[in-house]
């Protein structure tokens, strides 16, 4: 109560902070709703389609467990309970942060995810950074500058239309097999990260560059750009200092697309380069019908989305102060 009181006093004289706090509060509530929805939908989907979880839990290749064994497993896993009971049970555990135990790996799902997370975060963060930097460089340097504009735009269109695995294979052929400068696969060291990062970053960066350039060209028409240039500022500096910030709003809006692209792309990239990571984990969980693992990963992905969108919302208010005071 005292902290809340103190916070309220702190916020009182600051309509801006109050507005931001309100915004974040509303988004947090919505985020909880999204998580609940994701958990529920995937729970339903899996129970409709997954087949016999008990069988897939005990069944190794060609095993033929007795009915007694299967019943025992069902009891242990709570699969003999009515579906709504399983659902409430699942939600209850979720509230306590318990994602359940993997049928296959026989460890806690949260443990399995956290073990693999580091590798994927490395890859995803590196790829996101490369994608955004490439997009910014391509857009700032080529917007409204012919013929560079058309050349860059053509390359971007090709890249965004090419499937991730094709890009990966081409990169492998060029840099690993022909030039032999980078390793083919593995998780060790930054050198092994270069090709997977590029594979993941190029198609995302290409789409971002297209959007960013379009936005930038619109902003460059604005009178305040002319004003800035009339002060004696270099064209490229005007683009970076004045125009880019406006155009970045659009990139921030697209961060949902970026996160989606990174998660989906990670599955393919990690498989292609035989890297450990959440993507691989997801692939094996789906192929072995490891229900708690799939559910856990879906909830985890939804959680990442919610957090990213919350950050995006805060980023908006930092980039565009008009959103708060308007």
């Amino acid at each position, binding site marked *: 109560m005292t902290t809340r009181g103190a916070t309220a006093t702190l916020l009182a004289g600051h309509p801006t902070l109050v507005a931001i706090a309100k915004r974040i509060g509303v988004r947090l509530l919505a985020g909880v709703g999204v998580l609940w929805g994701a958990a529920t939908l995937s729970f339903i989907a899996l129970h409709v389609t997954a087949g016999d979880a008990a069988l897939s839990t005990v069944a190794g290749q060609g095993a033929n467990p007795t009915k007694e064994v299967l019943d025992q497993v069902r009891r242990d896993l709570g699969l003999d309970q009515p579906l709504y009971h399983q659902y409430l049970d699942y939600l209850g555990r979720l509230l306590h942060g318990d994602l359940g135990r993997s049928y296959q790996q026989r460890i806690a799902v949260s443990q399995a995810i956290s073990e693999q997370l580091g590798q994927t975060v490395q890859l995803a963060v590196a790829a996101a950074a490369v994608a955004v930097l490439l997009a910014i460089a391509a857009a700032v340097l080529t917007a409204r500058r012919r013929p560079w504009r058309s050349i860059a735009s053509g390359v971007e269109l090709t890249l965004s239309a090419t499937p991730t695995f094709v890009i990966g294979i081409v990169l492998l052929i060029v840099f690993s097999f022909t030039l032999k400068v980078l390793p083919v696969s593995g998780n060790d060291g930054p050198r092994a990260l270069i090709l997977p990062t590029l594979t993941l970053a190029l198609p995302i960066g290409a789409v971002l560059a297209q959007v960013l350039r379009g936005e930038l060209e619109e902003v460059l028409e604005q009178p305040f750009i002319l*004003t800035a240039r*009339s002060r004696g500022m270099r064209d490229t500096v005007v683009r970076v200092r004045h125009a880019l910030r406006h155009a970045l709003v659009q990139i921030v809006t697209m961060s949902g697309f970026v996160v989606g692209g990174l998660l989906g792309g990670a599955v393919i990239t990690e498989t292609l380069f035989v890297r450990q990571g959440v993507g691989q984990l997801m692939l094996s969980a789906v192929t072995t019908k490891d229900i708690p693992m799939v559910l856990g990963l879906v909830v985890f992905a939804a959680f990442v989305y919610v957090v990213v969108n919350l950050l995006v919302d805060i980023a908006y208010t930092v980039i565009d*102060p*008009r959103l708060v*005071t308007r």
Partner: protein
Amino acid sequence: MTSLLEVTGLKVSFHGTTVVDGVSFTLQRGECLALVGESGSGKSVTTRTLVGLPGYGARVHAERLRFDGTDVTGFTDRTWRRVRGARIGFVLQDAMASLDPLRPVGREIAEPLALHTSMNRAARAARVHELLHSVGVPEPEVRAAQYPHQLSGGLRQRALIASAIACGPELLLADEPTTALDATVALQVLDLLGSLKGNSGGLLIVSHDLAVVARLADRVAVMKNGRIVELGDTEAVLQDPQHPYTKALLAAVPSEHAKGTRLSAVERPAASAPVSVPVPAPAGTPVLTAVELRKSFPGPDGVARIAVEDVSLTLRAGETLGIVGESGSGKSTTARLLLGLETPDAGEVRVDGTPWTALTPEQQRAHRRRLQIVYQDPLSSFDPRYTVDRVIGEALGVAGYPRGTRRRDRTVELLEMVALDAGYLRRRPLELSGGQRQRVAVARALAAEPEVIVCDEPVSALDVSVQAQILDLLADLQARLRVAYLFISHDLGVVYHASDRVLVMRQGRVLESGDVRSVFTDPQHDYTRELLAAIPRLTTRSAQPPTPLGVS
């Protein structure tokens, strides 16, 4: 002594289209030259060329283009950058769009200082406060940290001027510096520019409105189609214009003696006596009545703000009632209440004697058709993909015209009423000029054969010459159709010209009302007097009349 600016035979073209066609003029130190002309006359491109920023794809050629004796025709971007902001300052119109909306104004003002001086951050901040103070911005420390959208229009424009004069340039270029401002604020900004003239060396001011620049300029250059058609001392140009186009521009300004006459020169041979507009029949029965309207909106902090308080008015068939006031005075809210687009918190609006509230939604729709509106910016009220045919056709559909030849014929008829023709049917809004768009907006309003047209700042976005044509058109249509206008504007000159009676509004209340001539000749309220004093007049500084408009 060399001229500050020397321009001879300046030509600028874009992709083969010549926009500036052989412009020549000079500007001395301590002098103010005004470039006057309508949109598309090439005045803005001329100005931009003077800082080496004519625009993308421009080809510039000049026999002579000298700034302070230095030939600038061969300047590279690098050499230009040392001049821009340092020796030549540039003020664009509408500071809302001309200041970066995402940066505090203080940082914008500091930008030229960072580029052209060796001042450190603290010194720049101190200089920004000094500059804001010198352009008349109160509380410079507070204002410097604010964003453009947090400042009023006048303060914004002052901040923009501060950024242009930050490095003490010898030449200041101002392109329509007061166009987006209310009259009283515009006057203050003009006076500020005038006071800067002495220490900034030279001032080149660009405007479509002769009356605006007359106050400031020593000499005037009138531009049309990329050429200067008349150049001379301000007094000579105003008193004894030589070129027919200058005469037309002068005649287009609504003034005390122009009331009841045509403003546009379209159908009138130059130099003939003023042609009277047809006088409408005396006002008839009340068509729209408002009784003690009151409306408040919640502000950003949740506290209700009164937008309209105790407003009563009567609009009779065939008359024009003007509402005049500055931004935020409640004019537009009043209009929305009258149209039934907002529900008053208290009070009542009656259409033909029946209160809005007593009508069923069905009846309200039928009534609403009899009330139409024309907005300031028709571009934003048209679907950009619609053709003129479809814009008007849609309105006719609502008015009960079935699709087919009858609707098509009526569309053409409406276009002819607003002095356009069938050739415009296939055009889209972006392919029309501002004046043509406003004509289409009027035609659309007429489609439903309304009794009342609410004109909300109908000419505020237009050049003076086009404004004159639209005002004439509205007068003609009123005489012909006996439609009543509710004419809302912040421009007193326009309201005086267009209205029979007038309400002066401020902060949601009616300060004064009555016959337009008596309100203007014998204002009862100080605020009305202040507004009247701010009307730009076609007189020079030496011959400034002490009397408000209408007193003779």
